[in-house]
């Protein structure tokens, strides 16, 4: 780099990168992390005797319980824990559905499709990514609308008798929107993994008498596991951390944990509690992903490949 750009330019590039990393990534995060342990106080009291470190902001997540019922079993649960649990659950659901959609397509692209048509196929998958995420979310908002094209089509082919309020059915809209937004983050790692499998292995398995599902279960899926794992981690983390899609496609009964954080920041103007919640989401999601990776026997080094 030094030889190609000369000392002046090299120094400038390094300084800019260092500035970006330090001032725009590390310092703000450390500031928020530090703030998350301090109480939300009027300006005059900041630095005063009440401004001490504690876990109070983190413990706020356990406040104000609500009555909920699941499978006919009623229980009382802190409302933010409830939101968090549903966020994790629906993020998992999004991840699973993304995998179910991406795997067959990845296999098709990697092993079946004519290599000549592959670039066209990839282009068709990429074009939606050129449109901004906001616009895509609104596009789905229109598609899912009560008098929108989806209802019109389903009514037209006679699959439903009356239009459905898609965006007012709990998390339906959010899940659909998240899948659409993040499915490619699953597709490409899985595609890369499947593509690196020697086709002879698939043929060898078939030649030894394996039916198609056995070939996938014993040969293709184990080989693609690192790709599936890295795709899943990405989709899960992005879904759990998404604010835009739940805000646009959410219903009156759907609350995403990021929306709760957003409310602490913007509505309550309590940045301390908001930071505490944000770090809680980050660390718990990390723990959750670590456990999932341990369960599926995936090593971090596999994902990095």
């Amino acid at each position, binding site marked *: 780099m030094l030889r190609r750009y000369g000392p002046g330019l090299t120094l400038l590039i390094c300084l800019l990168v260092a500035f970006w990393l330090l001032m725009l990534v590390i310092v703000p995060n450390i500031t928020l992390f530090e703030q998350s342990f301090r109480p939300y106080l009027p300006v005059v009291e900041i630095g005063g005797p009440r401004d001490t470190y504690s876990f109070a902001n983190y413990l706020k997540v356990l406040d104000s319980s609500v009555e909920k019922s699941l499978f006919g079993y009623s229980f009382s649960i802190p409302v933010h824990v409830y939101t968090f649990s549903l966020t994790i659950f629906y993020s998992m659901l999004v991840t699973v559905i993304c995998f179910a959609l991406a795997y067959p397509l990845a296999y098709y692209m990697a092993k079946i499709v004519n290599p000549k048509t592959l670039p066209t196929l990839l282009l068709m998958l990429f074009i939606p990514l050129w449109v901004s995420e906001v616009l895509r979310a609104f596009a789905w908002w229109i598609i899912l609308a009560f008098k929108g094209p989806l209802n019109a089509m389903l009514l037209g082919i006679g699959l439903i008798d009356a239009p459905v309020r898609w965006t007012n059915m709990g998390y339906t809209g959010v899940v659909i929107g998240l899948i659409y937004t993040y499915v490619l983050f699953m597709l490409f790692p899985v595609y890369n993994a499947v593509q690196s499998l020697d086709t002879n292995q698939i043929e*060898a398995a*078939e*030649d030894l008498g394996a039916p198609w599902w056995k070939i996938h279960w014993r040969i293709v899926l184990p080989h693609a596991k690192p790709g599936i794992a890295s795709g899943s981690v990405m989709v899960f983390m992005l879904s759990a951390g998404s604010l835009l899609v739940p805000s646009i496609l959410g219903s009156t009964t759907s609350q995403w944990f990021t929306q709760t954080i957003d409310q602490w920041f913007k509505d309550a103007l309590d940045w301390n509690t908001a930071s505490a919640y944000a770090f809680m989401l980050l660390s718990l999601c990390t723990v959750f992903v670590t456990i999932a990776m341990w369960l599926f026997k995936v090593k971090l080094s596999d994902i990095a490949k």
Partner: protein
Amino acid sequence: MSAGIDLENVCCDFGSFRAVDNANVSVRPGEFFSFLGPSGCGKTTILRMVSGFIEPTQGVIRIGGQDVKGKRPNQRPTALIFQNLALFPLMPIWENITFGLEVRGVDKATRRKKAEELLTLVDLPGAGDKMVSQLSGGQKQRVAIARALAVEPQVMLLDEPLSALDLKLRQHMRAELRAIQKRTGVTFIYITHDQGEALAMSDRVGVMSQGRIQQIADPRDIYNNPVNGFVAAFVGENNVFSGEVQNPAGGMAAFATPHGTFRARLGASAGGKGVKLYVRPEHTRLSQTRADENSIPVTISEVSFEGNFISILAISETGAKLAAEIRNDGQATVPGMGAKMFMSFDAERAAILPDANVRG
């Protein structure tokens, strides 16, 4: 159990390219049959048609007398050994070997036992718990053979499985493969571009070129009585002379070349034009005096001592390079460089053959 394989007028087209052209072969049950030919001659296509990965464009393939049209590879009684072996790297050796039994629903204990039996058969006892990456090239080879044998195929199809091994190991595995074939009695169809392999291992060899089967015969016949120039040139070395056939009679003919007129055996369908005279270097003699017939005056230009034989390059008076070989029996005299000698050969050992059997 082993089954014969019959190919009847089998053709295979890839687009406008005809990879296999009208193949007719009948492989007997329990036979070791090799397809020999240069790369791109269609031999692998034949193998993939028999195993079921490609359907022939025309013609019928029978395995054990049954037409296998439309049957997928997992429905055929064949087992294919891939050129790169295609072992499953994520499974231990024993699971690799018994994968075919696993898909047939055989329980684990039986599979473990069977794996050990097969590992003993291929001379790798106790390697069941190793991973594929821990084995050497030759060991992987044996595992691939064991894996194919595990499903008790009636026909084993081998796609140049020895090509990745070094020379010494390759020669060892030749004998090993042959022994396993004799022990199991399974029909082997072996694909190779290595004439030495094909001749050493096979009961019969089918030599292929440009999608056509040129000759099917036992190894001795292939080498000693090639039906055309392609077979003669692909299987072994030759001195080739262009010329014209004169007065054919009783299977022999005179052949007029720029070096003189020679008497030679007339190969089948070698009456017309486009024929050449083929003489193998080891069938030539070098002497100080002119022989009665088929004698060419030459100057020795290169002598290389190979140990068991001496390879000699001689230049004829017209400038053609001719090769000769003398067996080293311990007393053989090595001609000196630049010596003027006569190269001669028996009429019986020289053949007038047409060019390869190709379309056109």
